[in-house]
């Protein structure tokens, strides 16, 4: 491999700039408004140029925080998120964030520094095979071997990240390339021989689709993240109302169809509503709109929607027929597909079906045991909805609180629920909330998190404080890693192993010589980071604390000490059919 720093020959009449400057120019050209990142030896040249960049740079406290912030920004705005980290450990710290974005189809461009080209493979200081490591968790990645290619690669990276099924793209830039001079400019447009995200819609598929829909007696729309990234909320609503089709959504699509719409059955799947899961089981036509039949949705595959003809609309051809038998695959972006089919869909009332679904909704609402003096976690979520008048943009971590956040907050608009769905990444919520706040500064951004998840990236709180971001972090503290504890309660004979975050009732080999107290003390911890904080332990304290935090326009942490062993119901055990649903309310 040749180090081109020394011997680049380009037309001397052309203005020359360094590869590092190309990175900044490429980001500007791509419309970057805010870059999240963390410096290091292998990106010093880029940071030097960043000093004069026309967009905002946000220094995070961990590279994982940077990727999750870029991700939260992307989910909240629909624009690609951007982050910049150094080589070696900087790059490896992004892997969880990249995998999170990859699973959920979120557009990100992550720039990583790399050791100089002639050092690659030498086990140089802070060297890691970032291309090899990130390959399975990115949509694509590039190792830049010549600064002349850099403007083109940056443009391609944004193009790949934002088209087709969106996803993260890594650009690995060796240090000598950052110093190399080049006259190359960003291309006017991107063309790629082997990548064609805009496939024309097949009219035959549309005809078959409308035919199936017009003949169906009990149709059901099952809507996923593709409807959010594909900006299909409006046409989805038009279709649902034209033919009176009930709608259930996945975790990724909360709010793309308003929870307050009479046709909404809310979320389906393991912790979805009874009505949604019954509807899946009884429908005769299931229309998947940009959803991918995740195992948390389907449960037992062979019994899933067993009475239904299945239509699957997806921009990702490989997703169609991957998990379940599909009777009709419609390949394309969901919005143009639904727009194409809409004129052929006959208005219908499906009165009997709608009535049936309505009965399920009324008979099986989300309910939880009555609370006495102890706060029920579900109550906290309800109060967040009530006090924010349903206007909050919610981010979550992963586990019980995440599921309660889908059940007890009513989402009415897309991009107002931001959560790690596919990968289930704890530690996502707080940085994602910060990223969302940068993207939508006028929104009320609330992070609903647990005492487990929040500790995984708590250090990022200082970023919110120093930028004076009025985010509100609500910690649902039950002293447990609650979802794992719930599974241990239900499926492992209540043997609580490795789930105690508090000091009591630990397994014999986990005993620690600690008297019971708040540990960590989240209030002190938040205050040490410069945030306002309060601990609430009684139900009547919840709403006033939220109201104060929501009104204050300061960074807030509210710790709610909740009932330790509350469970998420309904629950369809993993790999099971809806008939095996557990739904205890007392």
């Amino acid at each position, binding site marked *: 491999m040749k180090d081109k720093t020394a011997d680049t020959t380009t037309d001397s009449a052309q203005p020359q700039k360094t590869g590092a400057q190309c990175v900044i120019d490429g980001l500007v050209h791509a419309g970057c408004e805010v870059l999240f990142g963390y410096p290091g030896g292998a990106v010093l040249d880029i940071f030097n140029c960043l000093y004069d960049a026309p967009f905002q740079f946000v220094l995070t406290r961990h590279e994982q925080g940077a990727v999750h912030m870029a991700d939260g920004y992307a989910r909240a705005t629909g624009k690609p998120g951007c982050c910049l980290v150094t080589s070696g450990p900087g790059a490896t710290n992004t892997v969880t964030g990249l995998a999170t974005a990859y699973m959920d189809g979120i557009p990100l461009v992550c720039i990583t520094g790399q050791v100089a080209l002639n050092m690659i493979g030498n086990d140089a200081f802070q060297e890691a095979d970032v291309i*090899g490591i990130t*390959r*399975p968790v990115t949509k694509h990645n590039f*190792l830049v071997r010549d600064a002349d290619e850099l403007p083109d690669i940056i443009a391609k990276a944004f193009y*790949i990240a934002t088209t087709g099924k969106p996803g993260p793209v890594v650009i690995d830039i060796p240090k000598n390339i950052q110093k190399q001079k080049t006259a190359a400019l960003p291309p006017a447009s991107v063309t790629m*021989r*082997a990548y064609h995200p805009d496939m024309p819609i097949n009219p035959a598929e549309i005809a078959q689709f409308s035919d199936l829909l017009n003949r169906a007696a009990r149709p059901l729309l099952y809507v996923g993240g593709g409807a959010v990234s594909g900006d299909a909320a409006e046409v989805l609503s038009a279709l649902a109302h034209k033919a009176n089709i009930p709608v259930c959504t996945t975790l990724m699509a909360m709010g793309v169809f308003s929870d307050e719409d009479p046709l909404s059955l809310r979320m389906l799947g393991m912790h979805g509503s009874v009505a949604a899961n019954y509807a899946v089981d009884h429908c005769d036509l299931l229309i998947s709109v940009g959803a991918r039949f995740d195992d948390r949705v389907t449960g037992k595959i062979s019994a899933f929607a067993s009475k239904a003809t299945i239509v699957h609309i997806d921009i990702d*051809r490989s997703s169609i027929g991957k998990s379940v038998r599909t009777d009709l695959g419609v390949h394309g972006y969901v919005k143009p597909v639904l727009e194409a089919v809409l004129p052929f869909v006959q208005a219908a009332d499906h009165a009997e079906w709608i009535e049936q679904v309505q009965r399920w909704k009324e008979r099986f609402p989300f309910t939880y045991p009555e609370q006495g003096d102890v706060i029920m976690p579900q109550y906290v979520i309800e109060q967040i909805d009530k006090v924010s008048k349903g206007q909050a943009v919610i981010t979550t971590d992963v586990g019980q609180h995440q599921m309660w956040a889908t059940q007890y907050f009513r989402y009415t608009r897309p991009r107002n629920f931001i959560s790690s769905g596919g990968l289930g990444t704890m530690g996502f919520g707080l940085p994602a909330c910060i990223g969302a706040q940068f993207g939508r500064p006028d929104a009320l951004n609330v992070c609903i998190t647990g005492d487990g998840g929040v500790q995984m990236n708590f250090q990022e709180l200082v970023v919110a404080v120093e930028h004076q971001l009025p985010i509100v972090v609500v910690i649902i503290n039950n002293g447990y890693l609650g979802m794992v504890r719930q599974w241990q309660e239900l499926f492992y004979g209540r043997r609580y192993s490795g789930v105690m975050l508090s000091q009591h009732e630990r397994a014999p080999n986990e005993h620690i010589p600690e008297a019971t107290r708040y540990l960590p003390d989240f209030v002190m911890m938040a205050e040490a980071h410069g945030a306002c904080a309060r601990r609430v332990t009684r139900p009547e304290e919840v709403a006033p604390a939220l109201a104060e935090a929501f009104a204050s326009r300061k960074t807030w942490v509210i710790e709610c000490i909740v009932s330790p062993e509350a469970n998420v119901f309904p629950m369809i055990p993993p790999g099971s059919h809806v008939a095996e649903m557990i739904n205890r309310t007392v």
Partner: protein
Amino acid sequence: MKHIINCLVENQPGVLARIVGLISGRGYNIETLNVGPTADPTVSKMTIVVPGDTHVIAQVTHQLSKQVDVIEVVNMTNRRHLDRELILVRVATGNHLSRAEIVDLASLFSARVVAVQEDSVTIQMVGNQETVADFLRLLKPYEIIDISRSGVIAVGRDVVDHDAKR
């Protein structure tokens, strides 16, 4: 069933690793893999033999097609094609009798003896998957000292409308 998948890819560093990683990462098996240049120096052709049912092969094909560096994926098994594999096999010849038998067997398969040693003969054999399997089966009674196989390569036999392709 085994499927022969031809894959045209950008001739760039890392593409082979991407393809192999994709297939293994999703739990599929590669039986043989052959990579070589094409008439266009910017394009490489990979011939991948993957065992699996229709569902598995459809997934492999779609996943490959999705890759940014993959230009075209063709499941050759579904269309008229020629496939060939080259093997070099060194067989022990304990006595003159067995040498004669092995050479005789080779000639039945139009295989060539490319080296002879005191204790062995080395045979070069070219054939499609079936023929190679037959030949190796008939060699079973003898002691195979070493074998190297090129992996399958395949080319389509249908008339290609070059103008339409462009």
